[in-house]
């Protein structure tokens, strides 16, 4: 169970940037303050085991910053993140063991083979060689990866790379899976692999947070959605309820109606 309460993150501009901003005097984002930028102002949501939660929002809304705080890469300025009741900021090691993270940007070590990449992250999570071998066998079978397990990562196709990245993200059998725009830049077949994988975790004991711009993927996979815009939660609830908030009943219309119009334009 993940609980995010009143989360906030403020970045201080360095002197040069602050001077530049002050000189320009054009405030392009209401989150800009005196020498600071409130990337996330007030975000709250939760995600239960077996659930796939869709995280929506336009570019720059604060989704990635929120997920980075959840995964311990960034420290929140305010608010709380709990994983199974454990505070992420106070127990980062616990959180890191519970979370599997995958984004469209996270890469693999190019000069290591797929198997070496996955095993390396298994070792980083403290797994024994035997545990790693067993889990690799299971995951590689599930994702049909045995044919390219010995290939170096720089020789992989995009689809193979994404499957290897999934394997890397789940080798330690996390209880929380965070997908940050994992299908961005993928072809239809590669994207389907990722989506099928997420689908396979529905109803399991794993909580899945799925950030995406593709609303059809959300409709297909997500039980609930959280819409973030300008660093704040604008909607959090069942996907159907969000879609029904407009006359057309379409998720697309509901999204457009909820977000900052300037941003969408």
């Amino acid at each position, binding site marked *: 169970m993940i609980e995010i309460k009143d989360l906030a993150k403020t970045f201080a501009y360095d002197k040069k940037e602050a001077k530049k901003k002050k000189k320009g005097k054009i405030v392009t984002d209401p989150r800009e303050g005196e020498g600071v930028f409130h990337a996330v102002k007030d975000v709250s949501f939760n995600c239960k085991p077996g659930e796939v939660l869709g995280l929506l929002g336009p570019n720059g809304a604060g989704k990635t910053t929120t997920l980075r705080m959840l995964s311990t890469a960034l420290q929140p300025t305010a608010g709380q993140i709990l994983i199974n009741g454990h505070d992420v900021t106070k127990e980062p090691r616990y959180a890191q063991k519970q*979370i599997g993270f995958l984004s469209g940007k996270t890469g693999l070590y190019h000069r290591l083979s797929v198997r070496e990449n996955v095993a390396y992250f298994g070792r980083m*999570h403290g797994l024994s060689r035997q545990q790693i071998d067993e889990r690799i066998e299971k995951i590689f079978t599930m994702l049909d990866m045995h044919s390219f397990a010995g290939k170096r990562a720089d020789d992989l196709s995009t689809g193979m790379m994404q499957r290897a990245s999934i394997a890397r993200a789940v080798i330690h059998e996390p209880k929380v899976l965070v997908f940050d725009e994992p299908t961005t830049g993928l072809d239809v077949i590669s994207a389907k692999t990722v989506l099928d994988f997420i689908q396979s975790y529905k109803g399991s004991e794993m909580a899945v947070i799925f950030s995406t711009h593709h609303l059809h993927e959300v409709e297909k996979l997500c039980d609930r959605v959280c819409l973030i815009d300008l660093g704040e939660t604008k909607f959090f609830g069942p996907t159907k309820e969000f879609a029904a908030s407009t006359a057309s009943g379409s998720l697309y219309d509901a999204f457009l109606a909820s977000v900052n119009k300037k941003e969408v334009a």
Partner: protein
Amino acid sequence: MWLVYKKELLEILRDKKTLIFSILLPTLIFPVLFFAIGKFTANKTEEAENKEIKVAFISSESLPGFADLFTREKGFIKVELESDDFQSAILDKKVDYIFEVPEGATLPSNSQKQEVLKVYSKESTKLDNILGKRVDDVVEAFNNTQRMELGRNFDLTTENVKAFNKPILLEENNFATQREKIGEFAGPMLAYLLIALAVSGAMYPALELGVGEKERGTLETLLLTPMSKGQIVMAKFGVIFTASFFTVIVTLLSYLFWVWIFSLFAMDSSVAADPDSLTGKQSGGGLDFLSNISSLDLLLVAVLLVPLTSIFASVMLSASIYAKNMKEAQAYMSPIFMIGFMPVIVAFVPGMELNVKTAMIPVTNVALAMKDLIKGTVDYGLITILLVSTAALAGGLLYWTTVFFKKEKVLFRS
């Protein structure tokens, strides 16, 4: 931490570029280049020493014996000028030296006056200077005959003439050892080479492990593992240090190996080794010189490089982590290289020597100490001061790199 260290090392070793820069260049290409350049220089010098010099004389009949001395000397050939255009004749290489004797000139031994001759030539290169010296030697021989003749005219003995010529003659008794003399030249060379390699050896792994990881998206993945940021940065530092230090040590060992090989070759070719000469021709002397350097001194050269390499590894890793992309990181590396190398140049400014003050100047101190170690004139007390001060700086920089690596603004700079 060892897990990250081993993985990073494995990746670096699988990279062909690293292998070329860290192993192939220092073990094969550099030594072969150095010795090839040495051989080429020696050949060119020999060529200049044996070259036939074309000389021409204007009105030399008034100085009997002057022109004859040149024609009798091996390696000189007298030519006749076709025109009065001396410049064209020299630039067209029809003649190398033209001696113009003024009208009314007589032998100084007869006139008891100095005669001024004009000499035309084109001396612009070091090889031309060698030719010039050969000409000067012949002129000096002529002057000697004139001195002796003048002496006879004034009823002077040979000893009197010698006293006139050089009232005081210094007979040199230099107590500097062969190691000191060669070390004065070889010490700075070795310091330049090893420090340059320490810097360049750290550069490529630093780029790979810092901004390279950022660009590939693997750094963020690494940060999400239960490994602490401090451990991650220490592992990365360890790999950069290892790569840089390895490059330097391999270079040092390969240099010793190649000196040995070339010494064998030189001996086989029956090349006489002149212990006082510093030119490449006498490469057989290289081993003699090296054999005078104790194992402790060679070990100390390597030990000096430990804190020095740590300094460069820390600075370059910080710059690489700070950079947004590879292009920005590379822009930082060139000034770091230049700034890092400047103190080495300062170290070999005449008058600079290792003392309590200079032992605390980073990089300069190591360069000076290397020179003294090679020359065999090192003060081991100063080496201790140097090691303590450099290790303190290296430790400080490493701590700063660790703090730097923990900053969100650095890791997620965009």
